[in-house]
């Protein structure tokens, strides 16, 4: 039997309660803030010796000095003399601990006097109620990290039922920027989730929005890890390897041929796919981009009319000079031009109850979208999208919007999340659970500010997503500045190193001063975890992700420079057929305008045919090569008679 670490103490002024107790230890005991301990009571209750598990939340140390002045006097005012004092003062280490669990649970009594022991691995499992979901026949544990104390490592597990639903769901991470805690934690947790997600719960994939820098751009490349990290992977039963199935999606730059991502190095393009949408996709989410103060009900009505009656239909009207079939922004612009021209010719101010001014406004706002979201929205109507209906189990889909404009980011987020929701509702996404990771929640779901479409969507996921298998992993620097319903619905919360100002906000008042201090000084790889099964926050260590860090990735695989259209086309087509050459591309596109080339490229990318080269080439209209016009046969002037008397 191990020796006790300390003894419970209680006084009239600081009595023990059912949820808190104090104990003292030897000065050199391995106890600190966050240490889990077990108290063995001395007196049986209902025939059972009560055991109480607690986590240390505060520590005190003091000596028998009544006043600092006595110490000054004792050293004659010279601190240097302290080393010569023959005796060290009596000193106490006193700790406050918050109760994690009583065994037995009833009757719930104040913590009894008793011996305090450092929690063993079994104790940790009981204290955190992990024993309820780590059963052999129904193990839903997802490793989150190691609890370390007194030279002992204990694996800490989250309950999948409470991480991805349906009991509770969602996870939120808070921490200061620059310590790689938030992204690293998510990368690690996704690897852990993929490794331990129980088969009985179905399948799971992740959609990660890369909103800044190269953080998530190299998830399929290995990292160079220390032996200590590898040992943690072994202990926690998670393969120490990068994600096996990762697909990247990024919009084009404004040139519509170069991908707008930091993962544009030609060596890495094999699993990078353009993210481009046409008019139909955009119009479904037009309200994301349209200013609600600007677009009124009348404009809304016209947009709805276009969506319902014009888009993808043969449309004729007496005002129009011709029949229109609107598939792209270019088609839409032609439709508007024809309509307004017809109205002008007729001198009409109304068309089908829509005033001409409204028509002009809607034309302006809609056609402006293709400019504001250049690179994402194609004029030609071709789309390149996530594999809706064909999501793979344990696959990661990274949507890189870090370099996209803000409007485009909003549109991408809104549409992808909506599509995920639609497919999950219909159970035809390809997987039963999707984890959506969004960083910078301060920006997308702020506590203050106007109601935005994106914030509404995040709230919707947070409040109803768990029933669908749509799980939100979110991160931000300042939790206090995120909408309360978003973070409040996160069943699991992780905290990395925190900013002092943030910790001073009321949301952290439930934590002890010592716990807040520890949070402000956490090192890389350490987290405080709150989980529905844990009645108190727990500190854990987690390994560095087994994937290449963003800044290492961009150094090893620099972003491709902007290139001429022929080189850009070649890069994209080589994803399908590496044998294609620049000379071949130049030969194919040499006679065509850039617009035609992009049309052909987008069509090829959208259809991803087996023979990409041939398909690409077939997209061009046949142009007869220029050749010199045959010289007309010269007919000699009739010869004059030799005897022409009028000849000069």
């Amino acid at each position, binding site marked *: 039997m191990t020796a006790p670490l300390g003894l419970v103490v209680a006084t009239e002024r600081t009595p023990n309660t059912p949820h808190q107790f104090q104990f003292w230890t030897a000065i050199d005991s391995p106890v600190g803030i966050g240490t889990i301990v077990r108290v063995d009571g001395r007196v049986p209750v209902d025939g059972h010796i009560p055991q109480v598990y607690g986590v240390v939340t505060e520590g005190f140390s003091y000596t028998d*000095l*009544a*006043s600092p002045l*006595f110490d000054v*006097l*004792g050293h004659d005012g010279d601190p240097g003399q302290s080393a010569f004092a*023959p*005796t*060290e003062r*009596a000193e106490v280490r006193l700790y406050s601990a918050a109760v994690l669990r009583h065994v037995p649970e009833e009757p719930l009594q104040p913590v009894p006097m008793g011996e305090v022991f450092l929690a063993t691995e079994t104790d940790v499992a009981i204290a955190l109620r992990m024993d309820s979901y780590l059963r052999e026949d129904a193990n839903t544990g997802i490793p989150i990290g190691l609890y370390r104390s007194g030279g002992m490592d204990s694996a800490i597990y989250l309950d999948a039922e409470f991480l991805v639903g349906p009991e509770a769901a969602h996870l939120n991470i808070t921490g200061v920027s620059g310590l790689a805690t938030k992204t690293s934690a998510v990368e690690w947790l996704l690897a852990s989730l993929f490794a331990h997600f129980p088969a009985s719960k179905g399948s799971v994939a992740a959609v990660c929005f890369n909103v800044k820098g190269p953080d998530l751009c190299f998830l399929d490349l290995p990292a160079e890890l220390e032996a200590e990290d590898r040992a943690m992977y072994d202990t926690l039963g998670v393969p120490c390897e990068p994600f096996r199935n990762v697909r990247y999606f990024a919009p084009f730059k404004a040139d519509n041929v170069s991908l707008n991502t930091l993962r544009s190095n030609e060596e890495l393009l094999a699993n990078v796919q353009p993210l481009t949408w046409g008019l139909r996709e955009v119009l479904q989410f037009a309200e994301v981009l349209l200013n609600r103060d600007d677009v009124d009900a009348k404009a809304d009505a016209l947009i709805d009319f276009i969506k319902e009656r014009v888009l993808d239909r043969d449309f004729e009207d007496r005002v129009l000079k011709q029949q229109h079939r609107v598939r792209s922004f270019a088609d839409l612009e032609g439709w508007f031009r024809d309509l307004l021209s017809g109205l002008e010719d007729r001198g009409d101010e109304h068309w089908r109850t829509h005033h001409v001014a409204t028509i002009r406004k809607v034309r302006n706002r809609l056609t402006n979208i293709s400019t504001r979201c250049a690179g994402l929205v194609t004029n030609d109507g071709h789309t390149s999208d996530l594999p809706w209906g064909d999501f793979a189990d344990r696959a990661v889909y990274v949507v890189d919007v870090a370099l996209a404009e803000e409007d485009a980011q909003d549109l991408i987020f809104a549409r992808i999340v909506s599509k995920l929701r639609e497919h999950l509702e219909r159970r035809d996404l390809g997987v039963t659970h999707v984890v959506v990771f969004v960083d910078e929640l301060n920006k997308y779901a702020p506590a203050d500010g106007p109601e935005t479409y994106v914030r509404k969507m995040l709230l919707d996921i947070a409040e109803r997503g768990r029933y669908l298998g749509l799980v939100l992993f979110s991160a931000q620097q300042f939790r206090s500045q995120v909408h309360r319903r978003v973070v409040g619905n996160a069943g699991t919360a992780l905290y990395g190193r925190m900013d002092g100002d943030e910790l001073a906000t009321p949301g952290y008042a439930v934590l002890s001063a010592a716990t807040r201090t520890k949070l402000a000084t956490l090192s890389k790889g350490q987290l405080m975890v709150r989980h529905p099964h844990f009645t108190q926050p727990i500190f854990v260590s987690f390994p560095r992700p087994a994937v290449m860090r963003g800044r290492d990735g961009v150094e090893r695989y620099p972003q491709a420079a902007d290139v001429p259209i022929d080189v850009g086309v070649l890069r994209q087509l080589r994803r399908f057929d590496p044998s294609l050459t620049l000379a071949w591309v130049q030969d194919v596109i040499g006679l065509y305008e850039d617009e035609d080339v992009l049309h052909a490229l987008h069509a090829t990318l959208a259809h991803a045919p087996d023979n990409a080269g041939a398909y690409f080439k077939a997209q061009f209209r046949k142009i007869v090569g220029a050749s010199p016009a045959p010289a007309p046969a010269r007919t000699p002037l009739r010869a004059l008679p030799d005897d022409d008397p009028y000849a000069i």
Partner: protein
Amino acid sequence: MDGVRSADGLTGDRAIAADPETPPGASETLRSVHAAQRHLLRSIPNVRAATGGGLPLERQQRDMELPHVIDAAGAEDATLRARVVPGAPVAAIRAFLDGTQRSEVAGWCGALPLVYGSAGAVVRERIHRRLTTWERPLVQHRIYAPLAYAPRAELEAALGAMLEDTTKPSADGTIVPPHPTLLLERATLAVSRNRELLEIALAERWCASRAEPIMIDGGIGASEAVAQSACAVGVVKSHRTLYAEGDGLNTVLALRRGERSSVIRIAPRGRSEVLSWYLRLRDTEGRDVLWGLVRVEMRATAPANVTERADEISRWVLAESSPLAAPDPRWDRMAYGIRSAEEFLRATNN
């Protein structure tokens, strides 16, 4: 050692001494004054519990011994003079011994006080600059009753060897009258005597088993074995008796910090002869003349070694002036180790 138990402060019941005369469980019932009251009320008819608020008898005003001076024979110089202690203080003391006592009226049997007395002694050993308890401290709880007047049979039946008579006849066969104040004083003296016995027991044990110096709070002459031990150093803080007269007294009272008086030879009544000297631990500027003044005792030694030994022990005692024993009001004279012993007993001995 009847009625005496060792207390390690952690598992209080494991070291209770077996006593054939003590009824089962009696020793445990005397762990505190309240436990003693319950036991007395259950066991003795016509006993009423004291409800005086628990003020220890030691703190109540008593007629104390009057301060006085005694001339003592010099063992180093013909007349007392001040000597500067040469060299720097040396932390050579290995352990500190002290005892505590507490007396309280537990109940009344008619007009007769039944006093609950608790005494203890402990050695605090210094290991790597930290003080820990050496072996087991000795703790004794007893009921002190005037058996000449109280129901002896019932009390003995209830308490066995844990009962002590405060009305034992003196040498001439007289018994103290049943004056309540006098009986209380007799009880307090008995507790004090028992505390001293506990201290002696521990001191003798240390001196018999260890060779390192031990600082004993008070004199060392109560035990012949201790008084003759080379490792025992007594430090007396109270000066109701000053062993100097005339110029010698002035010399003692004028000692400056780091100075000692000449060594004298003292043999109080009923105690072994020891060598002693006064030592000033702290500056007296702005203080009374007894501030920081202690009297050190060591065994009687050959005259040729007296100066050297007195200087050496003085250096040891001077080293113990830090850290301060504050907030004890006697911190100017008390070694921190002695305070540690008192605090330990206070914490473990109720």
